[in-house]
């Protein structure tokens, strides 16, 4: 029977990482859907910019994307493993029968019924994570479609961002494009030591600005969006500079001998 699990938890607790490992271990037919999270007074949700979906689909080639409801994709398949992710700050009440109403509403729209529901910090099958107490959380995001970074500038900016130069940061994640055609999933959470910089498997040719998804999503307190945008502007490559960096890469690639 098709397994449909609903995985919830606060931002940065490790939902996407756990989903990635679980689906890689499963190895078979699988699908993923990220729902909008539940609202909570004073706690802004991180924008659902498709970062996690893009990252998972890059890592798991057979993963089906269920973000667009179609009747074909939801034909029940006996061994398909479906994981649905949603951000939810607080744990479900023990007396609650079913998921949060906002999540239930979205599941209904997708015509989905889950077999199982797991919440980080509650269910022992999920890894224990330090999740912080907070009463107020702001969110901000920036679409970086078509933007390409100077790599050393990205390192400097990310260091400033996660160390509080632009407000008290709680969570930061992004998909960022490099001039050589690579893209990186940048991931940081205040309770973890160090950031993850994970290269995507797919690399596009260094021929101008890539069209794939690129976005920055942050959550924290006393955020300074103007400072962030100003710094990002200084980090991004202009058309001229991008061409200067990509032209020799294209020449190198055209000189490579094909291997058999």
């Amino acid at each position, binding site marked *: 029977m098709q397994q449909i699990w609903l995985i919830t938890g606060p931002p940065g607790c490790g939902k996407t990482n756990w989903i990635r490992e679980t689906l890689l271990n499963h190895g078979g037919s699988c699908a993923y859907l990220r729902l909008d999270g539940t609202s909570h007074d004073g706690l802004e949700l991180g924008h659902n910019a498709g970062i996690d979906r893009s990252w998972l689909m890059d890592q798991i080639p057979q993963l089906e994307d269920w973000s667009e409801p179609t009747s074909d994709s939801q034909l029940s398949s006996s061994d398909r493993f479906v994981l649905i992710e949603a951000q939810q700050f607080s744990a479900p009440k023990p007396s609650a029968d079913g998921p949060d109403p906002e999540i239930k509403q979205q599941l209904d729209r997708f015509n989905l019924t889950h077999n199982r529901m797991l919440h980080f910090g509650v269910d022992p099958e999920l890894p224990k994570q330090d999740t912080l107490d907070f009463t107020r959380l702001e969110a901000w995001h920036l679409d970086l479609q078509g933007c390409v*970074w*100077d*790599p*050393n*500038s*990205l*390192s*400097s*900016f*990310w*260091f*400033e961002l996660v*160390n*509080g*130069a*632009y407000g008290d940061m709680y969570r930061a994640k992004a998909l*960022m494009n*490099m001039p050589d055609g*690579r893209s*990186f999933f940048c991931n940081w959470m205040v309770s973890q030591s160090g*950031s993850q*910089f994970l*290269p995507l498997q797919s690399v596009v040719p260094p021929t101008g600005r890539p069209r794939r998804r690129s976005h920055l999503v942050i959550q924290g307190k006393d955020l*300074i969006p103007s*400072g962030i945008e*100003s*710094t990002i502007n*200084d*980090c991004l*490559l202009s058309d001229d*500079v991008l061409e200067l960096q990509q032209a020799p890469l294209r020449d190198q690639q055209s000189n490579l001998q094909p291997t058999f």
Partner: protein
Amino acid sequence: MAHAVISCLHANLAAFEAVLDDIDQQGIKTITCLGDLVGYGPQPNEVVELVRQRAIPTCQGCWDEDIIDGLNACECSYPSQLAERRGHQAHHWTANCLTDDNKAFLAQLPTTLRRDKLLFVHGSPNSQHEYLLPDMNAFAALERVETAGAETLFCGHTHQPYVRELSGGSIRVSVQQSGSEPAREQEMTLPMCRIVNAGSVGEPRHGSTKATYVVHDDVSGEVSIREVNYDVAKTCQAIVEAGLPEVFAWRLSHGFEYAGAPKMPAMCASDD
């Protein structure tokens, strides 16, 4: 007799005043400055004027030179586009802010100062832009001092204070020329010398926000590295009020250099 050497003030008035207080409290009358009076910081005129008022002999730093000669003359290489843009922004702001009189003062600063066997430079005797790092090749370091005809070289530019003593040195060579003469063996004994880096008053990069400078006793030869607390928040406020990027204030208050190198691995290597 003790004398103080300061460097890399970077238009940070609160730090400079705190260092001068510290020097004055020790009764030290002779101060030499190794340049970079301006650059990134919010009070270039005030700092230059205080140097002039106190008549502190000063050699020209790389930032002082670049403000006079313009951006195109700058030999600095920045570690990233972000650092370069911020550097240029600071350059333009400083150049617009400095009075003509203070610019003229910076323009006439000598590149080196000498007192007996003591030589004072910003970067190295070769260039205001050359870094003399504490772990550079020891023979190359000695060559810088020896070729300049000094026994103790005071330098700045790196913003990290240190004292390096090079001693017990020798080089043996064998020389063969065309013809049939046998090779000649020779040995050169190397003189003892010291390189003293004064760190930075206005933009410390040694892992703390304290201003640093050095005190040298030219009789005993002893050198001490001094760290001085100052009101960092005051300079940070001045940065913001001056309209300089607020992130400069964050960097200064955390002891990071203004145009810092990345602290995390850049996205340049292949997958690991």
